[in-house]
């Protein structure tokens, strides 16, 4: 079973539409990371959340961590083709060990 569940597994949206990707755990997360990966390439750091209720934004991407620190969402506003890729959430479940467990990823396609 996956300790971090991401949903949806894949997403196709029209350019300009908003979308949300969710990452859920049954355990408290000590750090929640969002990365973006182009197929077969490296992971690009997007955002890190540590405090319950925390919310961060960068350009058109907003990430939130719920108060219980068990669920995070990544929201993209007015999607563009450049947003296409695989979004991975990663979490430290042991208390700042740095050892990350990842969700299975969400593949995003943006249709022009």
């Amino acid at each position, binding site marked *: 079973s996956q300790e971090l569940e991401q949903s949806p597994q894949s997403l196709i949206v029209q350019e300009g539409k908003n979308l949300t990707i969710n990452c859920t755990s049954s355990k408290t997360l000590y750090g929640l990371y969002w990365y973006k990966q182009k197929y077969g390439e490296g992971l690009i*750091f997007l955002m890190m959340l540590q405090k319950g209720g925390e919310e961060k934004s960068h350009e058109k991407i907003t990430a939130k961590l719920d108060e219980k620190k068990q669920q995070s969402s990544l929201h993209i506003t007015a999607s563009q083709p450049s947003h296409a890729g695989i979004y991975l959430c990663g979490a430290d479940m042991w208390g700042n060990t*740095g050892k990350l467990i990842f969700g299975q990823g969400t593949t995003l396609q943006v249709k022009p």
Partner: protein
Amino acid sequence: AAGVIQSPRHLIKEKRETATLKCYPIPRHDTVYWYQQGPGQDPQFLISFYEKMQSDKGSIPDRFSAQQFSDYHSELNMSSLELGDSALYFCASKGLAGGPSVTDTQYFGPGTRLTVL
């Protein structure tokens, strides 16, 4: 800004051969992590080093070993390669407080794609 450097980017080996992957962390980063990502899978933690000492170990086969050197670069040595070792191998490094990157954030390298024939 400097990023994590991995070499080689691509490597093709035969079964039972050995391979060495190298990782050069972001300057002033003292912690290195290695991950393995199989085709269509999420990255799996292998091993980590802090200040040249092994700090944590994950699902790393006994055929694999790694170390971190005095200049903080790290090498992952893989012996008796098997077909199932074909994967993307990522190195990530983590920053010091006050350093050039966000504290406690792992920055990933571009990966080394290992193909075992």
